[in-house]
């Protein structure tokens, strides 16, 4: 009986999935044979943190954003400017930036989240472009298109340096992000988000303020992107406006859709595959982007719900089919 409930708990996405993710993070270094691999793994982790947040907005609440690279960029530049230009302690710079970005998302989100579908896509796209333009043109603070150097992250006297150290820091934060997202989804607020995704009027008539919940998840997803941006800036030591650009927003949305909407681990898988694939495909040289596109198209045709949910469903039906087969045999 007890082992039964424990097994059920292990199989739940929250506990089981988190343990699985922790195991992957813990064991992955066995396969990471040089610092280049560690570098890719850190980038995967940072993208995955953004995607977990973005998936709360897109996958669970059903609200699109084509401007999240803007929040990522603001996180990166906020940290860079405060820590490098004004000499703030990096942690304080990061916290201040996060609060500012949350406030921005709150203020901007209020009017634009009234829009739906394509119109929301346009509005968030506009927001992202404005942020990019500000970063690219305010060269007095941001260094403009040339970018800006960022001091290493340090707490007290301890400086975070080297891919291996960053790997563990980002790995721990990725686990934390996944844990927070899974908790939210399984809470009344998370159910409210999924409900308004399916039927906004259905959610409203049981007492859910849909606008308030959309705004909340928009702010949360902006904060996830902002924190990842701050960390990314300190990690790489040099940033350019490209990280805030439209193309990066599209990449992030693609990762979420590819991995599987409304699946936290799908967001992680999407980030992992789409960050590493271009590296793996480097062998194709000039044809790299063509193969990349073909892989994406093939995945969406054969796994239309995204990698993780489609495979989960496939496994479930196969298991049902075997169970039925045994039943018929008896």
């Amino acid at each position: 009986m007890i082992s039964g409930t424990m097994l059920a708990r292990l199989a739940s996405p929250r506990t089981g999935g988190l343990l699985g993710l922790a195991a992957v993070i813990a064991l992955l270094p066995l396969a990471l044979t040089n610092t280049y691999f560690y570098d890719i793994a850190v980038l995967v982790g940072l993208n995955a943190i953004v995607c977990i947040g973005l998936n709360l907005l897109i996958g669970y609440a059903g609200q699109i954003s084509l401007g999240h690279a803007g929040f990522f960029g603001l996180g990166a530049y906020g940290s860079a400017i405060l820590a490098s230009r004004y000499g703030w302690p990096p942690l304080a710079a990061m916290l201040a930036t996060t609060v500012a970005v949350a406030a921005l998302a709150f203020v901007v989100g209020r009017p634009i989240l009234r829009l739906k579908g394509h119109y929301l896509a346009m509005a968030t796209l506009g927001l992202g472009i404005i942020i990019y333009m500000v970063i690219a043109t305010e060269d007095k603070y941001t260094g403009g298109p040339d970018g800006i150097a960022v001091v290493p992250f340090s707490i007290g006297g301890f400086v975070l340096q080297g891919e291996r150290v960053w790997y563990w820091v980002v790995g721990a934060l990725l686990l934390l992000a996944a844990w927070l997202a899974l908790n939210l989804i399984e809470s009344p607020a998370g159910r409210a988000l999924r409900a308004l995704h399916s039927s906004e009027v259905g959610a409203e008539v049981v007492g859910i303020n849909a606008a308030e919940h959309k705004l909340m998840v928009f702010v949360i997803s902006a904060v996830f992107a902002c924190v990842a941006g701050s960390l990314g800036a300190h990690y790489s030591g040099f940033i350019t406006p490209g990280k805030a650009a439209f193309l990066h927003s599209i990449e992030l949305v693609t990762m979420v859709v590819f991995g599987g909407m409304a699946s936290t681990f799908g967001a992680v898988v999407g980030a992992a595959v789409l960050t590493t694939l271009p590296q793996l495909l480097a062998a194709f040289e000039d044809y790299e982007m063509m193969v990349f596109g073909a892989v994406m198209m093939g995945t969406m045709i054969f796994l239309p719900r995204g990698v993780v949910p489609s495979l989960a469903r496939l496994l479930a039906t196969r298991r049902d089919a075997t169970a039925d087969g045994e039943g018929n045999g008896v």
Partner: protein
Amino acid sequence: MSLLRVDRLGKKFGGVNAVDDLSFEIRPGAVYSIIGPNGAGKTTLLNMLTGVYQPSAGRIVFGEHDLTGCAPYEYARHGIARTFQNLQVFFNMSALENVMVGRYMQERCGLVSALLRSRRLARAEHACREEAAELMRYVGLQNYLYASADAMPYGALKRLEIARALATRPKLMLLDEPAAGLNPTEALELDDLIGRLTGRGVTVVLVEHNMRLVMGVSDHILVLDYGRKLAEGPALTVRNDPKVIEAYLGSAVSHDGTFGETIADAVAVAVEMHR
């Protein structure tokens, strides 16, 4: 003391008065039915009574509170729940989770405790799950406790909406054509369910075309025609009201003589009402 008071309510769509100068009161503890031909404004009225539509004129007073102009979630928070004629089930969730969403107002918690999954929240979630399962059994969905909403048949989904609405612990529950699309057996079970709802102290507003059901369960009936009140009163009075019979049968006769589906319906209804 009335539970709900509607005062000179009106709703215009372009130049059309979907609901026009409508006033009535609903007393607590009864089944109050709203009937009328298609296009009489019944669903428009229900949408206004839950804040889904904003009225163009008039007031809606629930208990002590004037709710005119409030958002749907505010109507819900004052104790008005509803089901939908065209289902608004959350198909991306399990049946049980659908009902758990109905518990939102009692369960909602701060963002921090949701993100960190506080111990208290975990306990509340457990209780919420139990209560949702209990409600599913109450409406007769015990076989769907582990079902996904998108794998359930139509009749079960209608009950699921009732369970979800009940989960909000409403004072007033609006049922928009609960019998539409049900087979005769399922429709019969609905009589029983509606009876048990009032037994729980929930006042029921029933919008329905199935006259057998309406006549069987209603204490009070409001008849709408072209958005206006045609008749109102105790069920027995209304069913014998000549104006009502004419509205149902008269419209049939005034047509070009071909017996369309709706006309045949009206005749059948009128005959049934005369029994």
